[in-house]
């Protein structure tokens, strides 16, 4: 039996779809198309003359060592910050789910970080991690020269990873907690009565049941680490020292907006877009197979 709403004439269907199509076209395809066009030309910033250069922009970007360095930095950043944010959130959510005394308090406190805008939290972490003023100043007193994000690229990378993970721990926590709480209590209680400990129950019952959530968060975290890191990098390190934290999204901003190289930035955006699409496909093809949907 046909359950869908059907229309007598296809034109009515089209008519209903038009507003939606216009919106999608205006806000997605038109800008994307514009970016593709720009990436194939040399744009004069003030307009008034564009030269068709074909794939030259892509060629010069891919021949640039700084660009490859920025891809590497983005990968390192995405991998470590996603890992940190997810593991910490998972542990915290598992603990909160156990109904310890005062767990309602953790729930409230842990959700807050996600509500803080990236630039504000970056400003806060800039103070916290400043080698001469903040918390790390104490460490530096004990062990001089231990922490120097101003000149040490690894320290600078660590500081933006910490700031980004801190924000996404809050986000991931909400989802993990919801997933844990959706697991029927009776399952856990039955396992407990059979004599299995906390760790065993976690690995054998809870973990498999929340894999859909883990997978969802993995995709979101990796995508966001490529795109949402901009505000943090801009305020904490501005891509330095010596390009160590010049992530792809930040390089697009500084080349395009500060450097007024619209074509180069457009070409980089396209590469970034393709990269995110590819990563997402890989995740769905290979990781989703291990996910148990109920």
């Amino acid at each position: 039996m046909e359950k869908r709403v059907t229309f007598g004439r296809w034109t009515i269907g089209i008519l209903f779809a038009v507003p939606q199509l216009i919106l999608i076209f205006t806000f997605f395809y038109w800008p994307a198309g514009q970016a593709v066009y720009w990436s194939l030309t040399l744009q004069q910033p003030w307009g008034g003359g564009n030269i068709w250069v074909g794939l030259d922009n892509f060629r010069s970007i891919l021949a640039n060592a700084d660009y490859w360095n920025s891809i590497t930095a983005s990968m390192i950043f995405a991998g470590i910050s996603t890992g940190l944010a997810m593991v910490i959130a998972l542990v915290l959510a598992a603990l909160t789910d156990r109904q310890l005394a005062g767990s309602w308090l953790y729930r409230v406190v842990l959700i807050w970080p996600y509500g803080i805008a990236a630039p504000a939290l970056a400003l806060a972490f800039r103070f916290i991690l400043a080698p001469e003023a903040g918390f790390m100043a104490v460490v530096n007193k004990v062990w001089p020269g231990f922490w120097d994000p101003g000149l040490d690229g690894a320290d600078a990378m660590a500081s933006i990873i910490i700031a980004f993970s801190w924000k996404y721990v809050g986000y991931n926590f909400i989802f993990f907690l919801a997933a844990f709480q959706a697991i029927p209590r009776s399952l856990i209680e039955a396992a407990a009565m059979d004599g299995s400990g906390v760790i065993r129950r976690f690995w054998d019952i809870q973990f498999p049941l929340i894999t859909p959530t883990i997978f969802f968060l993995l995709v979101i975290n990796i995508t966001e680490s490529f795109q949402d890191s901009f505000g943090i990098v801009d305020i904490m390190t501005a891509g330095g020292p010596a390009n160590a934290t010049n992530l792809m999204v930040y390089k697009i901003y500084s080349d395009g907006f500060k450097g007024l190289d619209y074509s180069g930035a457009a070409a980089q955006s396209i590469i970034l877009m393709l990269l995110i699409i590819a990563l997402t496909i890989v995740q769905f093809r290979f990781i989703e197979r291990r996910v148990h949907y109920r």
Partner: protein
Amino acid sequence: MTIIKRGFAALAAGALSTALAVPAFAEPVKFDFWFGLSGDLARVVDTLCKNFNDSQKDYEVVCTSQGNYDATLQNTIAAFRAGKQPTVVQVYDVGTATMMLSGAYKPADKLMEENGYKIDYSDYFPGIARYYATSKGEMLSFPFNSSTALMYWNKDAFAKIGKSEAPKTWEDVGADLKALKDAGYDCPMAINISANESWQLMEQFSALHNQPIATKNNGYDGLDARLEVNKTKFVQYVTDLKKWYDAGLIKIKSKDLGQDMVQAFATGTCQVILTSVGDHGTVGRTQKEGMNWDVAELPVYAGTERKNSLVGGASLWVLSGKSDAEYKGAAAFLNFIHDPKTALFWSTNTGYIPVTKSGFDFMKSNGFYDKAPYKGREVAIESLTASEPTEITRGVRLGNFTQIRAEFGTQMQAIFANKVSVQEGLDTLVKNGDAILERFQQTYPGKTLP
């Protein structure tokens, strides 16, 4: 359907009647001025605009801060492409080459002439005027907020090592920093090595020593100019800075690390800094109680014939595509800013220097420079007018210079972190900078700088 139609008709009638009702008396012509200063400085600009509006009845300038210089240029470009550009816009020094090739401006000198204002262009300090003029000397934009780099030094600390004067040569600086260190000062001198410090470290140093930054007279003679800072005296300078840094005589201070160099100087943590005269007011307001300090011209290497330093800051551009009435207003506004009395108001409330000789003389005759907190700022004028500008000390006219400055910061950081040698770092700066210049040249095929 009919209800909607009637609604529209009513709306249209209403709009029509208000439109007809308004011009009963002559409204002042409004025009937009976008600028890039924020905070304290933005409030001074707002007062300046108010003063202009109060001074006459024909025009009304609407002044809007865009936050910073980068954003001002970006927003103006976006507005221009959409046909909604302001009449007057403040563009920073390094945007000059981009503006000149944009074809989006009305030359300032032509605007003034068309509207009957006689401006004596020789009244501008030559070092300031030539930065914004064509190679033939036509003023395309008017200097607005101008500054130059100075050396700030702590008199109390220098007294401890038996010095009552600021070091004049880099050789002396090296010896004094060593003496300060030996006298127990942990941070004899502070520098920062981000993109911004390209201005005082690379550009000012090169001008004072009459050393080119790029071929073709720093780009004035063509878009095919290429960098050459890897084979000038600048190499020696970076080598010395690095040597002093390694010896603990120089510390890196920046906001990211907890304290920027102006704060480090004002709190007495560091004894010498190189920064803009624009920070003179900030140091005075935030300094440690009772600290004695002064400013001096930037040092040069022994045996150097000192040349004029470069102007920093921004100028006012008038954009094309506006009505005659708006241009009349813009001309009146530029004329108002050119007035020596405005210069006094502007320099009193900011750290910026007057841009004309008459403005400077007017301020001197008012006793501006005789007493604290403004005493010392005249050194900036001395530095800017130390010599008649040469082909090289006129300024820097390179495309996408913001990106070249970013590259400067990157390579300096690599050098100071011991990732590369001084020569390797500067070679990479030239190589990557040249790629940026080549790209700019390709974007404007067949075009030449005016």
